[in-house]
């Protein structure tokens, strides 16, 4: 097991290098930041001066060398737009995103697993149809729609919650709810699907013969066997959130990594993009390692060499 983790980390390090190289060179194909940072009227001289000041006129390979050299000292560079160290900005934004993702995934998983597993007890039954419709609607509702409607209803109409912003616990309720809807719908569907097969297995009969409670049969015996695709899909959704719950962050004014990355990409703040990608990739790679390990934990027949 330990050997496996070790080799996985080594492989991930190689992927990380590939990712960084890709991002570095490909991002620079997407236009020159001068066009955004200087006023449109700027003269050619001003534009050249800007490029020189930020090293954009060096050959790409030289720019890359500088980047790597700084990175080796854990210097991720300065944000072109904000003129602050990239690392500070990313590390400031990341906890918000992580917290959002964790809370939303937790809620989504709990709700989805319970409803999906119960729905699978009688495929095409009333509960199943109900869960089906709700979860599908949840999985296909646009986030912005949900977010705005939620604000209009809970903050403006009922005045139960603040509209947006950071602050106490109450500020997180709406964003987390909105964010959990799609993963919840998606996961519920996957749970339902794989639970249907699991419930018709022979070991479920054995459990019944032992007199095990129905809830235990469902949530202990069948569910664990049905979990493989569920955690995969949940992992994908979590990855999406780590990459940034952009809509939710933007609408609710939560300063997360998603918003930061979107802005940086739009403003061609290359150093930020690189720094952000590295940090999120670390989290995503770690998540994927955790998921792969959990396969083996969930199903002892799966072993990694």
């Amino acid at each position: 097991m330990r050997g496996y983790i070790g080799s996985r980390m080594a492989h991930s390090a190689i992927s990380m290098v590939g990712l960084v190289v890709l991002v570095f060179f490909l991002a620079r194909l997407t236009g020159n930041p001068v066009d955004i940072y200087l006023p449109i009227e700027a003269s050619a001289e001003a534009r050249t001066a800007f490029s020189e000041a930020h090293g954009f006129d060096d050959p790409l390979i030289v720019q890359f060398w500088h980047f790597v050299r700084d990175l080796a000292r854990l210097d991720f560079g300065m944000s072109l737009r904000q003129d602050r160290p990239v690392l500070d900005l990313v590390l400031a934004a990341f906890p918000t995103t992580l917290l959002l993702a964790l809370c939303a995934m937790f809620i989504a998983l709990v709700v989805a697993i319970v409803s999906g597993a119960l729905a699978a007890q009688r495929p095409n039954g009333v509960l199943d149809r109900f869960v089906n419709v709700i979860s599908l609607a949840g999985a296909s509702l646009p986030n912005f729609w949900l977010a705005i409607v939620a604000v209009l209803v809970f903050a403006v109409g009922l005045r139960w919650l603040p509209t947006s912003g950071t602050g106490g616990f109450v500020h997180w309720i709406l964003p987390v709810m909105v964010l959990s809807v799609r993963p919840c719908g998606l996961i519920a569907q996957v749970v339902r699907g794989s639970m249907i097969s699991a419930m018709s297995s022979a070991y479920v009969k054995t459990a019944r013969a032992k007199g095990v409670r129905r809830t235990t049969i469902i949530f202990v015996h069948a569910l664990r066997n049905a979990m493989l695709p569920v955690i995969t899909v949940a992992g994908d959704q979590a990855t999406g959130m780590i990459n940034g719950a952009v809509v939710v962050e933007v609408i609710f004014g939560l300063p997360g990594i998603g918003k930061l990355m979107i802005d940086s990409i739009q403003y061609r703040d290359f150093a930020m993009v690189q720094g952000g990608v590295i940090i999120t990739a670390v989290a995503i790679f770690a998540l994927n390692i955790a998921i792969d390990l959990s396969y083996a934990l969930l199903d002892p027949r799966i072993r990694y060499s």
Partner: protein
Amino acid sequence: MTGNNRHLVEVRNLSVEFHTQDGTVQAVRNVSWHIDRGETLAILGESGSGKSVSSSALMGLIDIPPGRITSGEVLYRGEDLLKASYERQRELNGSKIAMIFQDTLAALNPVYPVGWQVAETFRAHGVGHKEADSRALELLERVELPNARARFNDYPHQFSGGQRQRIMIAMAIALDPDLLIADEPTTALDVSVQARILRLLKDLQRERGMGLLMITHDLGIVEGLADRVAVMNGGEIVETGPVGQVFNAPEHAYTRNLLNAVPGRQGFPASAPSDERRDTLIAVRELSKGYPSSSRSPVVMALDRVSFTLARGETLGVVGESGSGKSTLARTLLGLEKASNGTASYKDRDMLQPTSSDRTVLQRQIQMVFQDPTASLNPRMTVEEIISEPWAIHREILPKKDWKGRVGDLLEQVGLSREHAQRYPHQFSGGQRQRIAIARALALQPEVIICDEAVSSLDVSVQAQIIALLKSLKDEHGLSYIFIAHDLPVVRSFADRVLVMRKGQIVEQGRTEDLFTNPQHPYTRELLQSDPVLGGPVAA
């Protein structure tokens, strides 16, 4: 509990049918029987005659739909279980009525440790976690699971067939049920273990007055254990009565048939011209296989320097203690497990690390019938697809247009019918699935078939038919078999030579006749001694 009722459990007029794509299958028709406290009822009968289905009905384990209980009642101390609420049924299951399932690999949850699963029976009926664990461990030791403490947290797939069966038994007897339904509980156990397990059951019966419903095809067990016997055929009970009466004066033609088919009563194989020099097909030298120690358990040497040869046209019987490495031997020869040491060759081709061209030959010429037939059949394929799969893989054997007919022939040869071709594995009984697996192995017409407990779930008459089939193939096509079995009479009647295994080692090997008449190793002697037919206390 109504005291005025005479019987512990009484089944009246039970009929069960299944819906299938081709119409309705009447699995059980108007079956009635009863068991009293401390009594043992044995149900004998043809494979597929409805034994398992009728007993599952008792515990509410039939899937309804597609199954349907069309008539009858099941009275447990006067209470009709078919009408009981789910919660009531749950209360009784496990604590008052328990069942040992036929197919142990599928019946155990693959993702939980076995100890946990045994302890669950206690927990489900209100015992605390700690106590449940310690009692579960006690039980596992009682059913002679080797190294029980160390292997408490191992998973079902890490155990041998017989070990799993003992785990199932432990689970069933955990709470001293009033009624124990044992569906082929000892098919994977070697005779000495089997004898001790049966004694355990008997003790329980005596101590607690447990009623025992024994489903088996082993007439030796029936004779030794049962008070009364019911014979089923075609979903009906055709004959019932005290054991002695039925065995000595069978009334029904089917019962007579059954009793006559018992192996071992017919002497030694007539066919074996065993001294003739024949070319060696498989040569195994010093083969070892150890399973790496998991968290707690020590390294298991499943195979310990095993050497033997198999000649063309020969049947090599492999007998031995449950968990002695027989299945592992088969799996290692087929390359499913990596050998730790040693060599094995088939006609001078390396079997353990074959080149890709060698592998094609090996796959074509060596087939296997797995110990767990259910798991070895793809649940999403029809029987026809399953049996014709070898032809789909090796196109040269049979043109596609002949598949259907050939599948039908094979099904009939193994005692099934042509109509079964369109059904799916889950719609069959345990013995029927085993025969489907045999039919598939035969389909390829290989040179060697490794049968791992291939006939263990078959009633004696079908068993006899299958053995006869295998023999005739051997005579006609020169097939060779490695025949792993616990049923010594069957081995004696079929094998030319026999290996005896224990703790991963071959303790003795020799010609069948010599071995059975003049066993050398003490373990072999013990084994022969324990056999109810050959040497045991109830030998005829």
